[in-house]
């Protein structure tokens, strides 16, 4: 395994560009939100969420940098699996955002906190601080909405779960922004609970996405079979590889795992063929041939060699 495959370089470059745009836009959003910071719970939650949403973009950029490195004696298998680690970090972050949203909403409702949004003086005029916050939240919702939509197809092309989780994080961002706006309008109408209820509804969707990603990331790290990008089901292309290998090597046991964005297959219980090139193999159902990184073989178990120290052997058994 070495570096990123040339087939995916254009999409990878696009993904990297999108993540740099994400960092730039989200940093500007955090600055605007800090400026407009107010007493609304949903607003504070949206601000914290915007700060946390930088994490998947950062880990994607770090992971792709590592992924391109060549194997070395200290890391003989290369760095493809950095993507799996990055995916876990992104999934934990998304879950944390969802859990935090839910916790804050419940706490606000239980404590019956009545948010106060006093007027602020802006350019010599008194205006309700809710309007300033609504303007900031509107700004905070637009870039994530666009960036999330741009990232999704790139994540699908690259089979990149970090980028996919980041697209989900962007969805969480704009939904939280809209929930915050609804909450502040609710406060404006004297509905102190509107804020928390709006954030609470959004939290379920974010938490669901986060926990699902966490489940897939955990499966990947413990060498589970390759999972689909957006569900815990086994990926269609992994099923295709299994079918093809099963036909090529009847009676064998096929094990597969995911190393970052790549599939590593192992055929157990057969004598390895003299030569097999996964890249040359035309596997029906495997649209992106680059996904199949390795096919390794484990020959049938040999009978255990007899030893002269029989008592010790039995003891070991």
């Amino acid at each position, binding site marked *: 395994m070495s570096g990123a495959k040339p087939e995916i370089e254009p999409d990878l470059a696009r993904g990297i560009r999108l993540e740099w745009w994400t960092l730039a836009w989200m940093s500007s959003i955090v600055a605007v939100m800090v400026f407009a910071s107010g007493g609304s719970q949903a607003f504070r939650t949206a601000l914290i969420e915007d700060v946390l949403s930088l994490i998947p973009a950062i880990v994607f950029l770090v992971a792709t940098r590592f992924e391109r490195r060549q194997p070395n004696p200290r890391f003989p298998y290369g760095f493809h699996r950095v993507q799996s680690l990055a995916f876990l970090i992104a999934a934990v972050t998304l879950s944390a955002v969802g859990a935090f949203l839910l916790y804050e909403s419940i706490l606000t409702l239980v404590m019956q906190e009545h948010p106060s949004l006093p*007027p602020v*003086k802006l350019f010599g005029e008194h205006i*309700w601080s*809710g*309007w300033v916050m609504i303007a900031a939240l509107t700004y905070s919702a637009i870039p994530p909405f666009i960036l999330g939509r741009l990232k999704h197809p790139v994540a699908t092309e690259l089979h990149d779960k970090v980028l996919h989780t980041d697209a989900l994080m962007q969805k969480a961002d704009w939904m939280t922004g809209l929930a915050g706006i609804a909450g502040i309008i609710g406060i404006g109408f004297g509905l102190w609970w509107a804020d928390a209820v709006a954030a609470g509804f959004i939290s379920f969707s974010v938490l669901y996405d986060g926990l699902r990603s966490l489940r897939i990331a955990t499966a990947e790290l413990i060498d589970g079979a390759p999972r689909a990008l957006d569900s815990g089901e086994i990926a269609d292309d992994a099923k295709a590889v299994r079918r093809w290998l099963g036909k090529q090597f009847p009676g064998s046991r096929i094990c597969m795992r995911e190393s970052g964005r790549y599939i590593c297959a192992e055929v157990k219980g057969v004598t390895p063929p003299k030569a097999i090139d996964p890249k040359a193999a035309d596997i029906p159902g495997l649209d992106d041939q680059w996904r199949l990184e390795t096919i390794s073989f484990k020959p049938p178990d040999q009978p255990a060699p007899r030893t002269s120290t029989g008592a010790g052997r039995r003891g070991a058994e």
Partner: protein
Amino acid sequence: MIRLAPALLLLAACDGFPRDAEGTLDRIKAGKQFTVAFEPTGQAADDTARALVERLARETDATPRIVDRSGEPLLLEIEDGKVDLALIPLDEKSPWAHRVTIGPELSGGNEPAHLVPVTRNGENAWADLVHRAAETP
């Protein structure tokens, strides 16, 4: 988002926006009375506080009822909505800052009066009126 914009503009045009969660301003206007607690800190400060209360009385067409409260019991009554307004020295870093709404510091002429208007949390229409009145020279 685009569909939301006209609705927001309509809201901005609403006269009674923002509203109070517990209807303090409506109650004051309907009952023609509001309760105020002072904490005397000096002649200049007292004059500033009195001017603010008179301004609020004019704005709401209500009569102020002065109550003799101070310290933590006063803040508890503000929190419960039993007192509508307190004019007291209270720091923004006080532990009470999250439990009540603290307005801008009043200035008596050229000097700060070291008094702030304190209202109940969530009463955004009433706080809006008090804050604007406090900052009106």
